[in-house]
């Protein structure tokens, strides 16, 4: 029997995995992928709770998150391309121009 806890643990694992990826990887593309992972982890818990509570709102939210995630990836990848054209690298440690 797969209970709510199983889903939540999986979701937490995926989320932590994504977070570690965001924090410790240097490649912008990988960071974006990790972000997606985090979002999908959240989606998983949304769906799980939706099922558990018998309410539809959680699934609606998932659709929203997916739409936002798609838009975010589009923008993020466009930025990655632009940065690469500009500076020839997508290593985030090399693009820290906003500090003084």
């Amino acid at each position, binding site marked *: 029997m797969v209970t709510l806890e199983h889903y939540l643990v999986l979701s937490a694992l995926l989320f932590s995995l994504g*977070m570690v990826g*965001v924090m410790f990887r240097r490649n912008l593309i990988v*960071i974006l992928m990790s972000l997606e992972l985090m979002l999908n982890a959240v989606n998983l818990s949304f769906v799980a709770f939706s099922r558990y509570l018998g309410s539809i709102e959680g699934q609606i939210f998932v659709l929203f998150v997916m739409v936002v995630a798609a838009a975010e990836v589009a923008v993020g990848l466009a930025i990655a391309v632009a940065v690469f054209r500009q500076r020839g690298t997508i290593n985030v440690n090399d693009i*820290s121009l906003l*500090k*003084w």
Partner: protein
Amino acid sequence: MIELVWLIPIFPLIGFLINGLLGRRFSEKTIGWIGAGAVGASFVVAVSIFFELLKLAPGSRSVQKIMYSWIWSGDLNVPIGFLVDPLSVIMIMVVSGVGCIIHIYSIGYMHGEIGFRRYFSYLNLFVFNMLILVSANNFLLMFVGWEGVGLCSYLLIGYYYEKKSASDAGKKAFVVNRIGDFGFLLGMFLIFTVFGTFSYVDVFSVAPEKLTQGGVLVTLITLLLFVGATGKSAQIPLYTWLPDAMEGPTPVSALIHAATMVTAGVYMVARCSVLFAMAPTSMTVVAVIGGATALFAATIGMTQFDIKRVLAYSTISQLGYMFMACGVGAFASGIFHLMTHAFFKALLFMAAGSVMHAMSGELDMRKMGDLRKKLPYTHWTYLFGTLAIAGIFPFAGFFSKDEILFYSLQKHLGFWILGAVAAIMTSFYMFRSVFMTFYGKSRVEHDVAHHLHESPPLMTVPLMILAFLSLVGGLVGIPIIQGGHVFGDFIGPVFAPAKAIIDHGAHHAEHPSVAVEVILMAISVGIAIFGLLVARFMYITSPESPDRVIERMPGLHKLVYNKYWIDELYDLLFVNSIVEFSRLLWKKFDETVIDGAVNGVATVVQAFGSVLRLLQTGFVKDYALSILVGAIVVISYLVLR
């Protein structure tokens, strides 16, 4: 028609706005005639109101017209309102009438000047403020006009602002006037605390009940008001700005520093006649200051060589006469002299401007002489003005000056002597200027002599109008004949309450006989002619005699010629100490304390910033980490609570 009194100040304001805002593309002619026309329109309205007023019974010639509630806060209710009574109507007519003539003259005089438009907008703004000053029905609105004319005076004195001396003179006039305004303002505050209102009618009607005759309070109020008057009307000790004000264009001197603005103080004292009548001490102060100024300024006038400065000191001296008249209780005579003085002094200034125009800007009378053939109109009009100011029968000045001397004698012999001696000097220095300028041998420099020319009709016609007024303007005040004093009868009701108060206290002096009046008149004319003859002897018959007189008493001449070193004394006593103190504040207080505080705050912020800046690494992962840590802290707090 009286209802339309608000039109009077509105016209010049419109003229100011049109010329000031839209005049950029107008030709000189258009600008000039808009300016003159606006003031002329005011004059027309004023005259029709005057005739309307004449139709009313003498006792009820005081109409208030409230336009708008300007300030309404608690007990303070100040309207924009106008008071039409004989005093204000006469002032309005003098201001707008003489003002209009001077505007027309200015079109000719200022021809081709840079800033022609600026000049005419300022001039209209000035007339607007002056009309507000004399037509207001309460102290606060009068103060608005009072400050407004001060501002315009500053702007117009500094008209040639590229010239250091002109802009300095403008600043001096402004600052000295501010000192006087300070007194006026305090007086006004006192009036408000005592009466709870600024309205003339309310204040003056309850003054005899609220204040004790000769009490400290009323004396203080009137003295403070008089401080304001000394500033604006250039009396001792605040007269020093007026001679310097001659840096402005000559028509400005004629309009502001002879005919209108400087008389504001006299007007104000006359307006407050009830208050002054209740404070005999203040009356004495006013009379003494007035008489002393009349004499003091006349002595300086005798030694000056700059024709405009002679006229400036003469103005101060004549204003002293007016104050002396007010001080001895002859308010009507003071206003009468104000009116005649407006005619002949504006005339003299503008004639001097015409001379200056012909002489390519030369003002030194030592470089003039024998101009009467080259400048016939200017010569005749200047002569008329001189005859009027010297008080030769039947010119305007004779009647008004004689009247003042008559009333001063009634009050105290000392005032009469002050006035009479000043009158001799007046006659002397005025004829001295006539002889030095228009008669004798020509001392004109060669290259200037070529260009000598009479001024255009735009300038000479206004001169002639004023010369005519200087001749007949006094006839409204013919003395002796009972009921013949048209002017006195007209304006009398305004001063009736004050007169009642004065007569009530004093033991009633019996009216001097006609014979005394005639003798006094004869003395006045004799004085004037004596001055004329002395001037004639010194500057025509034996031109070397002035130098001999100077040799005889070099110390005295030096003292008077340098204006008693009053300016230097003021510099030493007040100006320098204030400047030094200001410098101290600047260098020590401002630069260390104020700037130190501001810079200190900046330094502290910068220090914090430079530490906190280390947190901003530019690496997104660091930020993400801090968010994570924060989230963990918050969640663990919520969970473990």
